[in-house]
C-alpha cells in the first residue's frame, strides 16, 4: 500500500526526531484517503518549488452562517484532483476541551466519512479544526455534527469561538469558573458568532488566574483573567518545609518578585500585599505553601492582537477587579457598549485595540461610560490619557458642565 504514496524526500525530513510529525500522520491517513495522498504530493511540490499552491475561497459555508468554514482550493486541481476542494471547518470546542471518548470517536467517524479524516486538535482559535472537505460535503457534515450537539465556530468578522483554560475543572489556582463563563458567553452571543457584523474579528479568552494558560493577554480582544484582591494565603509551616528541603527562598522566590514586596528572615515569609502585582511567581514556586487570596474575581483587559494590519499588542486593563458571577451582567453590558461603538466608528479590518489607539483611550472610556482608574496606567506618565477635567470644571458655569 505504501508504494502508492508519492515520493516526498523533503517532507520525509520532517519525520525525523523524537517529536510528533504531521507528515507521519498524513502518510498514515493517506493509506486510506486519496485526499491525503494528493495533499502529500502538493505539499512536496510546494516545498520543492517554494510556492504555495492553495487558493482562498471566500464564499463557501453552510446555509445561514457567515463563519466557521474556510474555503481552500488547490491551484493544481488536474494534478491533484483529491484536493481540488480542501475546505477547513472550525467546530466549536467544549469549554476547557473536555470530551468523552465517544464524542471524539463520533467526530472522527463523521470526518472520515465526509472529509480527509485529518484533524487539528485544537487550532490556535481553540476550535476543533477539521481539515479538508469538498463544498458538497459541508452541509452533510454540519447536519451530522448537529446531531451529536456540535456546532460550527467563528471565522471572519465575527465573534470568534470563546475559549478558556480548564479552570476549576482541574486547576487549584482558578479564581473564577472559566468554563461556565465561556459557555454562557458562547450561548448568549450565538448571533454574533455565526453572523459576522463587526469591523473585524473579536475574541474572548478566559484564564482562571494570572498564569494565563490560554495566553489571553496576548491574543484576546477581551481578556478575562482571574485574580484576587485580598492577601495571598500563606502557610508559614509549609514555607519552612520548602526551606528545609533545600529551596533557596531568598534567591528563588523573594528576589524574583517583580514588585520586590517579599521578605524572608529564615523563619517567616512576609508579603506586603498592597504592592503585590499578582504575577503568580511565588505561588507557582511554592504551591504547597502559598495560594491566591479568598476574595476572588477577574481583571478585564481589552485590545490584544497578533500583528496583521498593525503590530502586536497586549491587552490593557479595563476593569482592575470585578466579581465573576452569573448572569455576568457587567461584562455583557460593557461588551454591548464596546461593540456598538466599534461597529459604528471602527474602520474595516480594525481590531478594537487599534480602534482604541486611534481614538484615544480617554475618548473610548467616555463613550462606553467607564471611569478612568490608575490601574489603566502601566507606569506614571507613560500613557497620559487620563485628564482631570474636574479641576477645570470648577471654574466653569453649571450649564456647560451639564452639556459635556
Amino acid at each position, binding site marked *: 500500500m505504501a508504494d502508492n504514496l508519492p515520493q516526498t524526500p523533503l517532507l520525509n525530513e520532517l519525520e525525523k526526531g523524537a517529536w510528533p510529525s504531521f507528515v507521519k500522520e498524513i502518510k498514515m491517513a493517506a493509506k486510506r484517503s486519496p485526499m491525503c495522498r494528493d495533499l502529500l504530493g502538493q505539499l512536496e511540490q510546494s516545498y520543492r518549488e517554494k510556492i504555495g499552491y492553495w*487558493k*482562498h*475561497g*471566500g*464564499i463557501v*459555508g453552510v*446555509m*445561514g*452562517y*457567515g*463563519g466557521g468554514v*474556510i*474555503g481552500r*482550493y*488547490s491551484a493544481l*486541481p488536474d494534478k491533484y484532483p483529491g484536493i*481540488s*476542494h480542501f475546505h477547513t471547518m472550525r467546530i466549536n470546542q467544549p469549554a476547557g476541551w473536555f470530551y468523552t471518548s465517544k464524542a471524539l470517536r463520533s467526530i472522527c467517524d463523521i470526518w472520515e466519512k465526509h472529509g480527509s479524516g485529518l484533524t487539528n486538535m485544537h487550532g490556535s482559535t481553540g476550535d476543533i479544526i477539521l481539515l479538508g472537505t469538498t*463544498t458538497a460535503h459541508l452541509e452533510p457534515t454540519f447536519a451530522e455534527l448537529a446531531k451529536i450537539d456540535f456546532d460550527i465556530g467563528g*471565522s*471572519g*468578522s*465575527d465573534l470568534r469561538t470563546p475559549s478558556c483554560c480548564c479552570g476549576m475543572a482541574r486547576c487549584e489556582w482558578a479564581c473564577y469558573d472559566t468554563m461556565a463563563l465561556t459557555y454562557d458567553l458562547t450561548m448568549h452571543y450565538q*448571533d454574533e458568532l455565526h*453572523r*459576522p*457584523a*463587526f*469591523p*473585524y474579528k473579536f475574541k474572548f479568552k478566559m484564564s482562571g488566574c494570572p498564569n494565563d494558560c490560554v495566553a489571553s493577554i496576548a491574543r484576546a480582544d477581551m481578556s478575562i483573567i482571574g485574580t484576587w484582591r485580598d492577601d495571598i494565603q500563606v502557610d508559614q509551616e509549609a514555607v519552612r518545609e520548602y526551606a528545609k528541603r533545600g529551596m533557596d527562598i531568598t534567591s528563588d522566590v523573594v528576589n524574583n518578585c517583580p514588585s520586590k514586596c517579599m521578605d524572608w528572615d529564615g523563619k517567616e515569609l512576609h508579603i506586603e500585599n498592597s504592592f503585590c502585582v499578582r504575577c503568580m511567581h511565588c505561588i507557582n514556586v511554592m504551591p504547597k505553601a502559598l495560594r491566591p487570596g479568598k476574595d476572588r474575581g477577574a481583571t478585564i483587559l481589552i485590545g490584544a492582537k497578533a500583528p496583521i494590519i498593525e503590530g502586536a499588542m497586549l491587552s490593557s486593563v479595563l476593569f482592575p477587579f470585578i466579581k465573576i458571577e452569573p448572569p455576568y451582567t457587567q461584562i455583557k453590558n460593557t461588551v454591548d457598549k464596546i461593540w456598538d461603538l466599534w*461597529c*459604528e466608528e471602527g474602520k*474595516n*479590518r480594525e481590531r478594537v485595540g487599534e480602534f482604541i489607539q486611534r481614538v484615544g483611550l480617554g475618548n473610548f472610556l467616555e463613550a462606553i461610560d467607564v471611569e478612568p482608574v490608575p490601574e489603566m496606567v502601566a507606569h506614571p506618565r507613560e500613557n497620559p490619557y487620563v485628564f482631570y477635567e474636574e479641576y477645570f470644571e470648577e471654574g466653569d458655569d453649571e450649564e456647560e458642565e451639564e452639556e459635556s
Partner: protein
Amino acid sequence: MAKSVEEVAEAMFNMVKDAAGQKKLKPMDLTKNVMQLFGDEVDKQICKEAIKQLINSGRCVYTYFGGSYVELPHREGAAND
C-alpha cells in the same frame, strides 16, 4: 411609520444587487445605508433581523475577503469544479 423587516430586507437586497460586481458591502454598511434612507423608521435591531432574513432565505450569502461581506450568491473566481 416603522418599516417592517420585509421592507428593510428588500431595500438591503436592492443595495446588494446594485453594488454587485462594483463594491462589496459589509453588514454595517447595509445598516448605515438603510438608516440614512429610512431615518427613524428603522433601528439597528430591525436591520439585524433584515440581514438575518436575507441570509436565511438564501437571497444573499456571507462572503469573506479579508473581512466579511453580504453578497448575492455567485460562483467565485477561486472555485474549482
